[in-house]
Every structure is written in C-alpha cells, then in structure tokens.
C-alpha cells in the first residue's frame, strides 16, 4: 500500500489545527467577517449533511430544507414560548428533525430515483405551507422575530464572537461525527449503494434500510444547522422553508465536489462569499451566481475538490 506521511494522513490533526485557527479568527478579523464565517459554518454543515445523501448515497432529495427549516422554527418557538434552557430547546429541535426524517423517509424510500426526488419536494412544500398559513403558531408571513441567544448550559453565547465560537464548536463536532460515519462500514455501504444498488442487494444487504439510515443522518444534521441558524439570524420566516432553498445545499455540493467529504465546505465558502460580493452591487445575485455555477459545472465537472485532487494526482504520477 502507498505510504504517505503519517501526520498528513491523520484527520484528527487536521481537525485540531483548523479548530485552533478558526477559534482565534475573531482576534484578527473585523466583526463583519466573523458573521460571514458563522454563516459559512452553518451553510457548510447543511451542505455536508445533504451531501451524505447526494454524493455518498446517490439520492437526490429536494426536501432537505424541511429539516433545516422545521428545526429553525422549533428552536425559535421553544426559545420564545417556553422557559426551557436553550440547550434543551436545541436538542429537542434536533430530535424532532430526526423523527421527521424517519417518518418522511419511510414514505419516500418506497420510490425510485425520480419519484423519490419529487416526493421529498412535496413533503417540504407541506412544511412551507404550514409555516405560512398556521399564523397563530408560526406568525405566518411575518415569521418569528427577536429570537434571543440564550446561554447554552453555563456558557454565555450572546454577541457575535461568543455565538461564533458556539457555532464553531457545534459544527466541528457535527462534521467530525459525519466524517466518522462516512469512513465507517455503514458509510462504505452507502457508497456501494450509490455505485450499484443492485449488486449491493446481491451481497445480502437491504438497500432500503441503508438509504433510510442515510436520510435520517442527513435530516438530523440538517436540523442541527437549522437550530444554529435561527438565533444567529434572530428571525425565521416561511421563506426559509421554501423548496427553492433546498437547491442551495445541492448546488453548493456540486460546486465544491460531491464525491469529496470536504467538497461542500469548499462550495459553502465560495457560495457565501460570492453571495456577499454580488449582492454588494446587484439585487439579482442569484442570476450571476447561477451563471457562474453553470460555467463551473461545465468546466469543472468534479467540482473544486475534484479539480484539486486531479492536479495532485497528476503531479504525483508525472505528466501522462
């Protein structure tokens, strides 16, 4: 087997180094960028969780926003409507996302590719309509405003730097767990299903159960991202649950490289920066972003990570 330097191979070292650097970031970055990185972290987690389905199980779901959005609503309602500590609200919301993913997954797993995608879309539309129309609970069109950042256990997370650190820790732990899952036997089976679901069945594995597990994993961590997002924005609106929002983590994954664990993170960095940059001078940032994405997908079909890894490989093997 090829031997690489041990330290470069060890993901735990990478994890710790990036954690330390990012932890120190507010020391030398203006608050505006602290906000931006907070958003990147949340979007990254949402995209990576979606990519467990897309890139690692081969399932196209248009409904991931249902878990992100419903968790954002749940945490907001619990924070504003009850005296529960924030940690409890947080974990209840994530648990609800997992449960919703399990129930919706049980329905959707019966169907094959195309119908699966449409059914997930339909489910997320139901969530949208509930948020939009159940005014007495959700505030309807106006949404829920003034969501405070209550302490998480004993930690004060009010203020941009403190909340950034909270998000950083939660996202890093979540990403570490997702990474472990992808590298686990279960993760390898998911990739086998992506490659050839029929052969997976002929090796004695019930594909449907594994797909369901993948759906619940994606929904749960999508829920974590949503629960982080609501206090960060301080407001949740039905727009959060709109199906077009589901396309975001999909496009980010494509942009970054969906066959790489870290692809969606690279995609999220670029997505958030471009959005920020283009909205600076035009309202139609989606148009320019769409155009850019089209070009990137046409000329970089493996995404950013695919491009990078191709070059590393070529460098190693020498020119062909």
């Amino acid at each position, binding site marked *: 087997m090829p031997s690489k330097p041990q330290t470069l191979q060890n993901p735990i070292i990478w994890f710790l180094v990036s954690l330390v650097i990012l932890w120190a970031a507010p020391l030398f970055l203006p608050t505006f960028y602290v906000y931006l990185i907070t958003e990147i972290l949340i979007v990254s987690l949402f995209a990576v969780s979606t990519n467990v389905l897309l890139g690692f199980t081969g399932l196209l779901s248009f409904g991931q926003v249902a878990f992100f959005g419903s968790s954002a609503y749940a945490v907001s309602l619990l924070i504003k409507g009850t005296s529960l500590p924030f940690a409890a609200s947080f974990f209840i919301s994530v648990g609800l996302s997992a449960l919703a993913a399990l129930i919706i997954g049980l329905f959707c797993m019966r169907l094959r590719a195309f119908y699966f995608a449409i059914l997930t879309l339909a489910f997320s539309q139901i969530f949208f309509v509930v948020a939009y129309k159940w005014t007495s609970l959700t505030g309807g069109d106006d949404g829920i405003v003034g969501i405070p950042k209550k302490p998480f256990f004993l930690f004060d997370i009010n203020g941009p730097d403190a909340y950034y650190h909270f998000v950083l820790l939660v996202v890093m732990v979540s990403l570490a767990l997702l990474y*472990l899952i992808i590298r*686990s*036997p279960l993760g390898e*089976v998911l990739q086998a299903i992506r*490659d*050839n679901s*029929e*052969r997976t069945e002929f090796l*004695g*594995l019930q594909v449907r159960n594994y797909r369901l597990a993948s759906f619940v994993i994606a929904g749960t961590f999508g829920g974590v991202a949503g629960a982080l997002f609501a206090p960060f924005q301080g407001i949740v609106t039905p727009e959060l649950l709109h199906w077009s929002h589901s396309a975001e983590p999909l496009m980010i994954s494509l942009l970054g490289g969906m066959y790489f664990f870290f692809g969606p993170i690279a995609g999220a960095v670029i997505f958030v920066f471009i959005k920020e940059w283009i909205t600076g001078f035009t309202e139609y940032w989606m148009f320019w972003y769409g155009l850019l994405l089209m070009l990137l997908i046409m000329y970089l079909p493996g995404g950013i990570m695919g491009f990078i890894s191709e070059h590393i490989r070529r460098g190693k093997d020498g020119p062909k």
Partner: protein
Amino acid sequence: MSLLEVRTVSKSFGKLQAVSELELSIDEGEVRCIIGANGAGKTTLFNLISGRIQPDSGQVVFAGEEISGMRPPQIVRKGLSRSFQVSNYFPNLSVFQNVRIAVLSRMRKSRIFYWPVSRLRDVNQRVGELLENFNLLSLAEVTADKLSHGDRRKLEISLVVAQEPRMLLLDEPTAGMNSTETESTIRLIKDLVTRLGLTLLLTEHDMKVVFSLADKITFMHYGQVVCEGPPEEIKANQDVKEIYLGGEVC
C-alpha cells in the same frame, strides 16, 4: 436430498418464452454445469433462482424452503449467492473496498457507523486473504472501473466467494478471460468447492472448462432441459452434438 429444486418454472418476456416449465434438481455438494446456445435461457434461469426476476409460474426451493417470491438479500442470507455474466461491481470504489462490502455483509458488520472501517482488523484481514487468492492483491488500491476485463471477472467471482455461500451460481465465470486467467480461475473454483464441499451451479461456453469441472451437465435449448447426465454421456449424446457441440456454436 437435493439442495436446490426448480419446479416447473416458466418465464416469458412478452411473446418470448425464455424459460418454459423447467425442472432442475441439484444435490448438495454437486457441481452442475448448464450448457446451451446463446439465448437458451441460462441467465434467465439464474435470474429466476436468485430473485432478480419472479417466475410466471412454478417454484424455486432452496434447502427445503421456497425462495421464489423472496427479495435478493433474503435469498443471499439463506446461503445462495450468484455472480453475473456482465461484471457487476462498484465502479468508483477500490478493488479492496469492493470485496470489503461483501465481507462486511458476511461478517454482519455492515451496520457499524461509529468506527472507521479501516480499523476493523478481522474484516480487512479477510479481504486481504481473498484478494491474495484471486491474485488481485497488487491491484487492491485501484479503482474498480480501471481494471482490465480479466481482472473484473476475477473481482466478480471474488465478491461471491467472499460471501461464503452454501451454494454458488456462476454465470459464465470465465467469459472473455485469456487462457491463463481461465485456468487459474477454474483451479481456484475447483479447489474451493472441494475444500469447502460447496454446491456449484454454473453456465459456461468453454467445453474444456465444462468437462473438467462438472459432475453433471444439463443441456438447455429454448428454455427447456433437453437432456441431463454425467459429462461422458452428454459428450456422446446425439441431440447435444447436433444442436450445440457440432452445430450452432462451434
């Protein structure tokens, strides 16, 4: 007692009767070879036995239990595994990972989600052994779709062997292999079957392979069994000579 029984099974695709009221009975420990011209229905029969398609009528019984109607994973769990005529593997995974999926399933470790698969020593050791047996160890890190045709065929068979089934169904295992590859593969299969006392049902066009391996041969034509018997008998059979050995194929 017979391990596998196919009882008056029929299957048609539209107007085409691919398998018609076919009867087949295979004893435990037997090596049975099915021969027949292209389109005789051999692969369709395998598909019916392995649960890839369902028969229009009739039953398939394995180890005394009806398996027709079961889904493929269930049938595999009963100890009946198959390979495919057209190599059917995981193209974006490495050769090592391909075989590891089969081993994880066999060792019932495919649900573990909290531990890196690279750290499961018993699993990885077993994968290494299998690759060594199939002469694929030097290709362990290669992505499967980069393999040569012969190596793909070996990978295909290793996936079945990795499951340590009670009975193997191999659909033209050596199709397209060169003669050295064929020879080593057949030796491997032979050794495995005798050492573990496995039951083997295979289809094959290469008569040298057929006669060197089979205890008994079944000759199929237009979805039906024309005759059945030990190799010498089949070699001498007039029908087989006319339709197959002397005629359409050779």
